[in-house]
């Protein structure tokens, strides 16, 4: 039995997001207040120790822009604050910001900060810290790619070029007010502020340093200072990070006295849940589900994630869209999801946040159709190379099935298992060494807007090297719109292009599998690393 109702489709998730947006734009001026929850009982005392773990790498750097892995993001959600964050239903709620307001033209965003917010050393968090952080990030030349959202601020280009110290796009009229102004309208800029590249840094600690010192600065390596519900105690490399409750936390008293974020090899996560050494394991191997279910002390949590499993086609080599469509038809996706992942995957027709629009071809398994298309396209029967990264859970079970099913329609596939660094290098820099690349992960399910980073119009870096001015224009247009219906109209057109042109074969959105002990009340987020946002609401039952 699945704990999560299957009715939570992409469409439903979109509606949830849409609800938030619609409620906020009544009368042209938008108001939000923090969602309910996240307010602990006054006078409560933190108690107990939470031990949690998430599969995946952790780079022991605490500078949010340096690099980030899912485990760093998970830590940051407990340790740092951002202006706003997502709740478990993907609605925006306040973090440092108590309230905010979006102007009618979707260009100006005014935030009122919580006056009680303090750093872990007791200093107040003010609008000056916000301005300092965003300016600091914009000056980080090694991480320019991370700051694309902030580059939309008025004056960002000149500020980054170093010609001026002024950044008119950020104003701080008083210690509790931050006004951000964009050059182009973008209602969903607010959602981007939840990304890990927008955590607020302490000016009183980092003022006087420059971003290029952050690679080896003690703040980044051993002594970070945040303003979230939990403060840093110590990190043991490849063992754990130890956090203590920040009892003066401005949004409520943390429930746990201590939190340990453990870095465990895949082999140990389930064993430690079973042995009582771990309370919450995020992103388990999907094949561990049965063992979790069978254990009477453990709960299996499963829900559709926001990621995607996809076959990226090398559009420079496979230029005929009929061949790309044939590949999609040739794969029995439902059979694979049912047979290997026991139904825990949602089949897609387009990028996850655009897959539920009307009028998209579902590419249901149809080998005859695939053969017909290949014949029409004059397929030359050459061998195609499928590159994949072996760290992705279940990939080794799935690719031989692809190989078999594609061979049935006349496409010979050569499987090429690679490690992460090699996969990325081949995928990005050696386009003549592959025809199909298995891609997995991402957060495209959060919003159609996320897909614009993959269809960026640059023939060297766009996904599958696919460019299409019509598609890119639509995505840019959609990004600027605040009205949900107008957005849907635009993104539906974009989805139809992608669905027909098949630059990428969108296979399915995998369900995330999480495990926890029954005595812990906790929720996992659609994007698992963000789960720490909900930690104030978690607790142990006695």
């Amino acid at each position: 039995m699945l704990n999560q109702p299957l009715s939570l489709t992409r469409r439903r998730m979109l509606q949830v997001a849409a609800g938030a947006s619609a409620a906020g734009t009544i009368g042209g001026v938008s108001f939000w207040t923090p969602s309910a929850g996240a307010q602990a009982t006054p006078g409560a005392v933190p108690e107990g120790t939470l031990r949690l773990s998430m599969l995946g790498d952790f780079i022991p750097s605490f500078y949010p822009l340096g690099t980030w892995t899912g485990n760093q993001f998970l830590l940051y959600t407990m340790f740092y604050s951002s202006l706003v964050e997502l709740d478990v239903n993907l609605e925006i709620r306040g973090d440092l910001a108590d309230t905010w307001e979006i102007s009618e033209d979707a260009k100006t965003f005014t935030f009122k900060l919580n006056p009680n917010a303090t750093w872990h050393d007791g200093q107040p968090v003010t609008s000056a810290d916000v301005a300092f952080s965003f300016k600091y990030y914009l000056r980080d030349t090694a991480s320019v790619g991370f700051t694309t959202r902030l580059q939309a601020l008025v004056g960002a280009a000149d500020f980054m070029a170093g010609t001026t110290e002024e950044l008119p796009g950020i104003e701080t009229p008083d210690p509790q007010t931050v006004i951000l102004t964009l050059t182009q309208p973008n209602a969903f800029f607010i959602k981007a502020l939840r990304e890990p590249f927008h955590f607020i840094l302490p000016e009183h600690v980092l003022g006087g340093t420059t971003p290029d010192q952050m690679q080896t600065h003690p703040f980044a390596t051993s002594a970070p200072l945040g303003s979230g519900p939990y403060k840093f105690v110590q990190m043991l490399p490849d063992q754990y990070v130890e956090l203590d409750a920040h009892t003066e936390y401005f949004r409520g008293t943390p429930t746990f006295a201590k939190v340990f974020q453990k870095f465990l090899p895949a082999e140990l996560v389930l064993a430690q849940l079973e042995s009582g050494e771990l309370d919450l394991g995020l992103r388990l191997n999907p094949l561990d589900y049965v063992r979790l279910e069978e254990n009477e002390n453990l709960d299996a949590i499963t829900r559709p994630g926001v990621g995607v499993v996809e076959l990226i086609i090398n559009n420079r080599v496979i230029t005929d869209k009929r061949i790309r469509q044939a590949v999609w038809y040739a794969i029995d996706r439902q059979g694979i999801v049912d047979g290997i992942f026991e139904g825990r995957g949602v089949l897609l027709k387009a990028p996850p946040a655009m897959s539920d629009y009307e009028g998209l071809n579902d590419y249901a398994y149809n080998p005859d159709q695939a053969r017909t298309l290949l014949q029409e396209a004059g397929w030359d029967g050459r061998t195609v190379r499928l590159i994949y990264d072996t760290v992705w859970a279940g990939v080794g079970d799935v690719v031989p099935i692809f190989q078999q099913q594609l061979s049935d329609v006349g496409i010979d596939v050569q499987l090429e298992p690679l490690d992460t660094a090699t996969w990325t290098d081949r995928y990005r820099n050696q386009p003549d060494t592959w025809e199909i690349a298995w891609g997995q992960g991402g957060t495209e399910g959060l919003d159609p807007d996320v897909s614009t980073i993959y269809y960026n119009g640059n023939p060297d870096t766009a996904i599958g090297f696919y460019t299409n001015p019509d598609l890119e224009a639509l995505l840019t247009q959609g990004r600027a719109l605040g009205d949900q219906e107008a957005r849907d109209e635009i993104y539906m057109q974009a989805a139809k292009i992608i669905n027909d042109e098949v630059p990428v074969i969108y296979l399915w959105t995998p369900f995330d599998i999480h495990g926890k002990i029954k005595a812990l009340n906790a929720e996992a987020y659609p994007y698992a690393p963000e789960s720490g946002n909900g930690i104030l609401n978690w607790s142990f039952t006695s």
Partner: protein
Amino acid sequence: MGSPPSPTPVVCTAPEEDVLQYIIRRLLISIPVFFGITAIAFAALAAAPGDPIYAMVDPQALQQMTPESIENLRREFGLDQPAPIRYVKWVRELASGNLGYSISSRRSIEEELGSRLGPTLQLMGAALAIGLVVGIPLGMVAATRQYSKLDYALTVWSFGMIAVPPFFFGLILIYVLGVHFQVLPTGGRSTLGEDPTLVDTVKHMIMPATVLGLGFAAPIMRYVRSSMLEVLRQDYLTTARAKGLAETKVLVRHAARNGILPVVTVIGLHLPELVAGAVITEQVFQWPGMGQMAVKAATSRDPSLMQGVVLVVGVAVLVSNLVVDIVYTIIDPRIRYG
């Protein structure tokens, strides 16, 4: 019929002097060998497909980075230079005692190595001790009872230990002792948030040290058994027995001294592992040692970290080979270097 006495006595130089000269010569040879090792390791990592920057940056973030910002990042880590130049730079910095810093952990290599060497020495030392304590007596017992049921049982056991991969044995131990009976922690080196105590460390070390120790014990047992069998047939043992010595004395005093000589070679081969750690076992038991770090260095294509590992392991191999050769001259008078 004896050979006629030599007209002039052979002049023997003091053995100490011989050994000293030998050590100096070996040390001098070690220098080019050392550069060879580090250069090959550097070249191998540089030639490995993949790019450290790509291993470091999340794919979704990478998608948003411009080629210029990737180049900036590369420059910041000094990865924009060709490999030979980077190697020369590394050697130059090494001469001034600077090992650089890890691009994946951002910590200095000294710090990385320092935090890993202790745990690895601890684990591998315990494992080697287990290997010797279990392997030597079992080998002797198997030899003295050749073709008995016990000998066959030990032979089956030792081949089993050699054949079963350590990660599999490790997972079985984790499941039985950690999950089912819950008598030992499944991984890590210390209880969360507590300063390590001896008892706590030992508890965390039992399972990984057992896996590794029995892995050492099996080949040691095989070596001791075959070498003892050879020794047991020697005439001098018959002489010892003929003198009326008790069998245990014959075995322990006379046979064992020669019988366990090959163990020195086996230990010598394993000495570098004392600092190199055990890649798979450390991974399975989340033991923060050199082996675990070496895996990380390789998967993240982290040049300076990898060079740090190679440096330590390379020196360990050279030193342990030298030590073994010298020890041989002491324990086996038949061997002379000159």
